[in-house]
């Protein structure tokens, strides 16, 4: 098989390496996030397919091919070593298991959130008498904004408007779907974990920007965010999770820095990497098919 089968891994590493910088620099519009998620999906699909091809070599036709080639006096270039095939099969199995795990966790959490909302009074807003400050967007038809009484009591009227607008932006932009896709990509291809974090950060930034527009003040938005985060930091159990990319500090700094400038080139470059991966995967597939064709049909 050719080198192209290894390209998706290389591109995934590259995408992962630059995703943190991208998350901070990109203007957090819906288009940007869709582009990044699309690139991640292409990378994940390419890498998974490469693993499938590498695993298939375990079925023994490389051995056959090598024997056949020796008989015919042809030298085969770069046959896949057996160990690589085994590693690929293992990686594939682990990846699929992780996808099942994160998908189950997502559905279970969503179900629980819906049940929780049903216990509350109807309407857009669901308030739970819990003292810790939390706010969540609960997707559904219609989506709901779930807030704790502790958070509402902590904020003034303008800041409460910020929280409501922020969560509403998540629902209107269907951010949960974008995050879920990025999460599945990172589950099947752990090299893409930084991209998942970048997507999480970008959707939060997008919702912040929307809230800043609705409230008419970046300052108030930053203050609401900082208040909520500082009140929450008392709980070490949650800090242990370490969602680095969602760093509130970076979001507050971005709000203070002024409205983001749109950059068209950066997301395009990201997508190009995804397309490159796909092209490599296609090329590897063609090489694979040629090998099979040569073995059995010539």
């Amino acid at each position, binding site marked *: 098989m050719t080198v192209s089968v290894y390209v998706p891994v290389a591109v995934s590493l590259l995408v992962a390496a630059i995703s943190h910088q991208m998350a901070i620099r990109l203007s957090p519009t819906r288009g940007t996030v869709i582009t990044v998620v699309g690139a991640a999906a292409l990378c994940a699909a390419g890498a998974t397919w490469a693993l499938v091809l590498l695993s298939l070599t375990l079925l023994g036709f490389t051995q056959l091919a090598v024997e056949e080639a020796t008989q015919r006096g042809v030298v085969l270039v770069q046959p896949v070593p057996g160990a690589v095939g085994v590693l690929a099969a293992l990686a594939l199995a682990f990846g699929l298991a992780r996808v099942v795990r994160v998908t189950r966790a997502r559905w279970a959490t969503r179900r629980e959130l819906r049940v*929780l909302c049903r216990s509350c009074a109807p309407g857009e807003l669901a308030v739970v008498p819990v003292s810790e400050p939390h706010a969540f967007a609960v997707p559904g038809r219609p989506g709901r904004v779930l807030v704790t009484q502790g958070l509402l009591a902590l*904020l003034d*009227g303008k800041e409460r408007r910020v929280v409501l607008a922020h969560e509403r932006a998540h629902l209107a932009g269907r951010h949960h779907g974008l995050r879920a896709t990025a999460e599945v990509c990172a589950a099947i291809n752990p090299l893409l974990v930084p991209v998942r974090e970048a997507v999480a950060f970008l959707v939060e930034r997008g919702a912040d920007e929307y809230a800043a527009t609705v409230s008419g003040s970046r300052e108030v938005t930053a203050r609401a965010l900082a208040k909520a985060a500082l009140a929450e930091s008392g709980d070490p159990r949650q800090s242990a999770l370490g969602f680095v990319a969602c760093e509130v500090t970076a979001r507050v700094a971005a709000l203070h820095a002024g409205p983001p400038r749109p950059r068209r080139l950066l997301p395009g470059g990201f997508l190009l990497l995804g397309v490159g991966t796909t092209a490599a995967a296609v090329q590897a597939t063609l090489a694979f098919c040629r090998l099979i064709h040569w073995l059995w049909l010539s």
Partner: protein
Amino acid sequence: MVDPARAPSRRGAGELESEVLAALWAAARPLTTAQVQRAVDGDLAYNTVQTILARLYEKGLVDRASQGRRHLYRPTKGAEELAAEQMQALLRRGPDRQGVLQRFATSLSEEDAEALRAMLRLRRRR
């Protein structure tokens, strides 16, 4: 994501209802219409607040008690206590499940918290 450029400058009826309800929940004691107006902060006319409260009352989302000629409003309590228990349970789940929640603000490390406090102090001084 909703593009900031396309964000509505005026809030719709549903959004205002949520804001008034949020203010009532934040207060933790029954409020008069004037107090609600102050709590929602600013730009809503007294009559608007009154209309919103009447609508919330019709929907059964707020309780109303009379005090002299004034009405005192507070959010209707449903099975919120049950919801609170359910949320505590949800927040105790493992990192897999926590990762799914789309939080408004994540918790901070001690270092980040200090940086954030410093940032806020700096803004206030300017």
